[in-house]
């Protein structure tokens, strides 16, 4: 299966989100099994292909071909310790709040929760700065395309995978805090 071919999109590192979404919708509207001439198997494949292209990590892996494992990206290693620390702190504090059986115990936790929420935003901000840098990297590689080395591509793919996973893990905690703090 070639996801680029399925969506009739150019085989390039950079693809605009909106472009993928529009190409997907157009094909999906016609292939959906409820439609006359629809095809459930082709629709499922289209969905898989679009999911690969939407995710920069999977898209770059697709371009690089399957590659062996490689070292942890340097910037990722630096952010990892921050992310791990704050996730642990969040889970502990959120669990403690959930177990509080009276209003006073909960109220005592409000100040630490508020500081935590500020720290979460700060780490989230560092992640998003990194993500912007990665986006620029894609654009840079795209300008020289198809000249590139597979090592750089898979390195970038891994970085995206980490950035996105961590960001959604942090977001999950931010929303949990949001629900507590109102």
């Amino acid at each position, binding site marked *: 299966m070639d996801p680029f071919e399925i969506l009739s999109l150019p085989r390039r590192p950079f693809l605009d989100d909106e472009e993928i979404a529009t190409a997907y919708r157009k094909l999906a*509207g016609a292939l959906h099994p*409820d439609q006359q001439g629809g095809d459930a198997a082709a629709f499922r494949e289209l969905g898989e292909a679009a999911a690969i292209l939407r995710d920069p990590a999977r898209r770059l892996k697709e371009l690089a071909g399957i590659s062996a494992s490689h070292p942890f990206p340097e910037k990722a290693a630096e952010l990892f310790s921050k992310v791990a620390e704050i996730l642990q702190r969040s889970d502990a504090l959120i669990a403690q709040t959930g177990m509080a059986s009276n209003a006073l115990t909960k*109220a005592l936790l409000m100040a630490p929760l508020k500081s935590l929420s500020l720290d979460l935003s700060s780490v989230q901000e560092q992640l998003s700065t990194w993500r912007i840098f990665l986006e620029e990297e894609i654009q840079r590689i795209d300008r020289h395309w198809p000249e590139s080395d597979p090592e750089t591509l898979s390195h970038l793919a891994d970085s995206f995978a980490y950035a996105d996973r961590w960001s959604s893990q942090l977001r999950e905690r931010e929303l949990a805090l949001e629900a507590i703090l109102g």
Partner: protein
Amino acid sequence: MIAGIDLGTTNSLIGVYESGFPTLLADTDGRRLLPSVVHYGDSILVGHEARRMQAIHPNRTISSVKRLIGKRFGEEGTEGLTGIPGAPVTIPIGGQNLSPEEISAEILKKLKAIAEARHGTEITRAVITVPAYFNDAQRAATRKAGELAGFSVERIVSEPTAAALAYGLDRLQDRSKIAVYDLGGGTFDLSILQLDNGVFQVLSTHGDTRLGGDDLDQAIAALVASKASLPRLSLPDTIRLHEAARLAKETLSTEEQSTIRLPFLEGGMNIEVMLTRAEIEGACSPIIRRTRIHCLRALEDAGIKAADLDQVILVGGSTRMPLVQHLVVEIFGKEPNLSQHPDESVALGAILQGAILDGSLQNVALLDITPLSLGIETFGGLMNVIIPRNTTIPAKAGEMFTNAVAGQSGMRITVLQGERELAADNWKLGGFEIPFAPSPKGAARVGVQFSIDADGILQVLARDTGTGIEKIVEIKSAVEVSDEAVEAMLAGSLEHAFEDMDARIFTEARLKAEEMLPAVEAALAQLAGELPPDEIAGIRHQTAEVTAALQSKETVRLKQTLANLDNATQSLATRLIERAMKIS
């Protein structure tokens, strides 16, 4: 012809697609809304007749049965019903135990009869709507109810998605992003869709299947009871009070004040209570505010900001409350779109989905999603997501697994639905065993593939890549538990049945006291210098009372003193929260 049905918590509707238009069908009295109430007397009554019987024969009449569909005893929402924890819920009524599906089927039968009388032909095919956030068991049970009523159920469609279809039908050329805020009688959903040239793509959905108008009625009833200092009411009087609360809520959506009069309550009581809109808004606000976080989550999952939305469409009877509309403005920063009939648009959408399925409505495609993540349990008891929530269906996805232990001769595939990290916290849909030849750790490789069809039915395929042995299992309704499983659960629950109730209640209160006493000390230390001396003295007095009650080992006394301490420290809690909010 495929009928469209909105099987609501409070009211239900049916309609068909006729000469190019979705048409709702009314009963002989011209009413389109059928109350979702069933009465089991000499004969079975459904709808308006059943609702009239509710205050007279509360034990033989059931309303809001949708809140129980697809549930098991012991789950949230089944409080007050007794049964073996883990077994499918049944409701004792008129001397028999009925499942929620059977009761819902009576409502569907009545709708079928109304439609057939109106339309003059037999109607055997239907699309039925469910809350978007219903899980697999709740959807399967709804489908079963349809089948029991004599329908071939062509599709189960999500309510907000259906409402979006009704909204978008005369805007087929549009390209826009919309949110549908659906607050019904018992459930809340928020769905975000992209409309693009006749394609309706659901981007995300979030919700609470236990948050709706019923909860608002309950809050208002509690408010009336406290204003009138009512004693504990009998069941028929409670039902009258709830009905009055519901009417007051409706009146106060347009008026500023309303008087509740309930003459001739048991014991010769008459009550007359004046309510203002501000008062009921105070009581309802905490409930309605719970919808906010779901809106934020849905926006997050759709990857958009509130400002990117072109319209926020309100549906569901409870969105008539001005308070709801204000909150929507607060969350989304724009005035809501009130163009849709709050009670009818979901049913209209169901009719349209039926018309797409039978080919009478062309060039319209609905791309729905699976609202909850699907995955399998991994070796460490964690949930491994295979198909993430908000994936467009039909869909497929797969992953490769290896054996975690050397010499293992098979792998148990447990299929889960839900968003929690621990497997045990998610809903278990089913499981099976895939055998493989014993091999060193990591050497056996099993490919697991999930495939969902347009109805949301999941098929799981597991293949041992070594031997090529494969197993395909269709995951059926999780609500149907085998007899052996029920017996096993029964045996398990009996072991705990003889625990000393009083000892347990005392232990709970003791744990609470042990948490509360140090919390009071910590709060007093933090707020030293801010509190008036007499308040400190008052709190000290209450803590001493709790300590004495702990030593006395008297359960009732401990619970009472704890409640007093809770009261005495209310202002401490408020001060702490105010302080915390100043941190920036």
